[in-house]
């Protein structure tokens, strides 16, 4: 019997993934949970383990190709590896002796219908007549309005565009998906573009080229492509990265969906600061990383979320899902954007456990080593712009959650205590919340609880002091 391997959904809003690399060839044997392929999605790049052990009998999607979530990618034949596979070889031209050209997918595992990610707003651009025309005219074209994206199937290096290739493509409006890359790994070289402009090289197989290949290509006839202006004096034009686009879509969608409101408390962190000062050195020696304020705040937030679970809720249609557990999202700034890894069951961890978990996901996020299930399933998020110097933030809610807490820079400030002026470590904690689910009173109560926790709790025991 064979198991079908499908493109996994690596996050609520992720609708497609690109196969970066197959780690097994057709005909090779594989154990269950052994890495089978690498994929890239809007959220993470990761290895995906095999759902079954046996022989990789068929690879259906080649490297470099982008397919929707749920698309069948490969089949694992669970029969005894070699014998069966060999017997299954049919006269497939060019297939290696081991390559098992197994029978078409036995519908043993029911073909999961392509999960339509609920209203992923990213793709919901209304089909204007011209848009539709474009789609039908060019077949499966992914290049609407984006002349500088090469075909994803051109080889492992086909996405590397050198400065001169970008410039030539921009100046001459070349749709790079039409240019065959002859460089190493399928990279499109300057000469490939020049040859293409000269009409010298045969265009990539896809659609028929316009009659006069010398004329500036109009790959976007149908869709009113945004004018690609040439860079002006002291300007440069930078294409949006994958992750940038994902962030943009996600953030705009959040603002369009939620009724965002905001409030803030000021918290006295004097006790926490003193304790952290005392604990810092031994902690660093023991754990190997710095003790920041984040675990303290996270700990206080988890308790408050259990106390006021409506802040830890999700609006789903006309129902509200209220959680009695906390999957805490931690916003981590990475090279080319931002990612929010999730700490599962954060409410069950003590201070040190939270510190370890936060450090772990932050380090791995920056190294792009997060596993797919570590970037979704969050119930509440914390963002911490403090280290960059911000003292007050108004974050956008990470949908479909209902609120997000911003923890800004801890500063020494003069404050009045018992009619005397004192210098204390203080911080602004602010909350963006969705007024569809939460009201001002609740938001204030929640923030008050976090404040109270941070100001009154004794974390010393947690830290072994």
């Amino acid at each position, binding site marked *: 019997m064979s198991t079908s391997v499908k493109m996994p959904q690596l996050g609520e809003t992720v609708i497609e993934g690109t196969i970066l690399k197959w780690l097994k060839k057709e005909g090779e044997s594989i154990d269950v949970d052994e890495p089978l392929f690498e994929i890239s999605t809007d959220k993470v790049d990761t290895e995906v383990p095999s759902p079954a052990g046996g022989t990789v009998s068929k690879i259906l999607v080649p490297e470099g190709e982008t397919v929707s979530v749920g698309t069948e990618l490969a089949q694992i034949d669970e029969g005894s590896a070699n014998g069966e596979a060999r017997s299954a070889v049919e006269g497939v031209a060019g297939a290696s002796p081991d390559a098992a050209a197994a029978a078409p997918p036995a519908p043993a595992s029911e073909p999961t219908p392509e999960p339509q990610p609920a209203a992923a707003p990213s793709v919901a651009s209304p089909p204007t007549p011209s848009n539709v025309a474009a789609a039908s005219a060019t077949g499966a074209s992914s290049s609407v309005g984006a002349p500088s994206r090469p075909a994803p199937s051109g080889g492992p290096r086909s996405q590397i565009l*050198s400065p001169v290739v970008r410039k030539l493509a921009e100046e001459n409006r070349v749709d790079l998906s039409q240019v065959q890359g002859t460089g190493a790994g399928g990279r499109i070289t300057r000469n490939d573009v020049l040859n293409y402009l000269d009409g010298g090289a045969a265009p990539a197989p896809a659609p028929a080229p316009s009659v006069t290949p010398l004329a500036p290509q109009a790959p976007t006839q149908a869709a009113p492509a945004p004018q690609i202006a040439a860079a002006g004096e002291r300007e440069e034009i930078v294409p949006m990265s994958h992750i940038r686009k994902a962030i943009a879509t996600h953030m705009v969608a959040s603002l369009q969906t939620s009724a965002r409101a905001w409030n803030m408390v000021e918290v006295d962190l004097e006790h926490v600061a003193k304790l952290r000062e005392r604990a810092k050195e031994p902690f660093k020696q023991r754990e190997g990383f710095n003790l920041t304020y984040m675990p303290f705040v996270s700990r206080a937030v988890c308790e408050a979320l259990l106390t006021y679970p409506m802040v830890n809720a999700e609006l789903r249609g006309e129902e509200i899902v209220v959680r009695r557990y906390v999957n805490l999202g931690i916003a981590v700034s990475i090279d080319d954007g931002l990612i929010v890894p999730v700490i599962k069951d954060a409410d069950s961890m003590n201070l040190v456990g939270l510190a370890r978990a936060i450090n772990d996901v932050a380090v791995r996020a920056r190294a792009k080593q997060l596993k797919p299930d570590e970037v979704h399933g969050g119930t509440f998020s914390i963002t911490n712009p403090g280290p960059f110097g911000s003292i007050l933030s108004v974050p956008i809610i990470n949908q479909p959650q209902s609120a997000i807490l911003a923890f800004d820079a801890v500063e020494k400030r003069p404050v009045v205590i018992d009619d005397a002026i004192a210098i204390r470590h203080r911080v602004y904690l602010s909350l963006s919340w969705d007024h569809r689910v939460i009201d001002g009173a609740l938001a204030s109560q929640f923030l008050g609880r976090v404040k109270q926790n941070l100001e009154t709790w004794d974390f010393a025991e947690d830290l072994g002091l």
Partner: protein
Amino acid sequence: MATTPTVEAAAAGHGAEPRGKRTDAGEATYLIAIAEALWEEMERDGNVFLLGEDIGIYGGAFKVTEGFIERFGPERVMDTPICEETIMGMAVGAAMEGMRPVAEVQYADFIANGFDELINVAGKYHYRSGVPLPMVVRGPSGGGVRASAFHSQNPEPWFAHSPGLKVMCPAFPSDAKGLLKSAIRDDNPCVFFEHKWIYRRIKEVVSEEPDFTVPIGTAKVQREGSDLSIVTYGAMVHKAIEASEELERQGVSAEIVDLRTIVPMDTETVLESVAKTSRALVLYESHRTLGVGSEVAAVIAEEAFDSLDAPVMRLAPPNTPVPFSPSLEDAYLPQVEDIVESVKRLSSW
């Protein structure tokens, strides 16, 4: 005509002695071309004089100044003590007084002994006092002649780094002659490195015009090509030419840009070439780290980014002393096959 060039040259007066050493075909080696430049400038201008170790009676360690003391006398061809600091100091002082000294360091490596006078005095004197300092320091530089760590170095980056000095590293006899004459006529302190591997290996017909000069700060495309640019200077130009012939056979067309002058550098010619080819291999004989080519690579990256189809690549010796063992020296210096291999990696990037 071809039978008696020696006699004609001698009769002409200018540079008679060195020119007498040209081949029958009128070709001068790099070394002879340098001697001609010195001779002609000394004949032209009574303020020009030479000083250095063993340059007079002995005629110089490499015989560049052979016959000079007989023609110009010991006051204009001065044998000095073995002390480079003194040589530089004398040159600086004479230049302050309006003379045009040309100092020789026996091997360019020894220039380090005169470092302070060159870097701190000569390079900054005009800036500090407004008084020009027309002096030239010549030195045979470079490796490939089995001369070991003290006699094979390429000190040009030391002087290129410090402001106030012009630095030249010609690769061909004509350029050597023309640039040296320009340096002697220039009112700034100039450091002129003569690659000793080239001295007697490369010869060509060199202009006999008394006022033939090559402008300082101009690079020259020694070979046109379309697939990539090899930016280089000195002895590496010849290695690059040899490599480019092999590459031509393999279907790769390399353009060779010879910097000729290191300071001031003709970046315009470099950038024009890169704009044309979109790929650059920077080839140099000074150590790889912070060598002359490091600067060239940085300029290309900064100013020709838009034109690049591949990262700028450097090929240069490692940061070790120049080895004495022939096989090690060969491994240390970029060889023709190294260039071919680098070019192939670059063109297949």
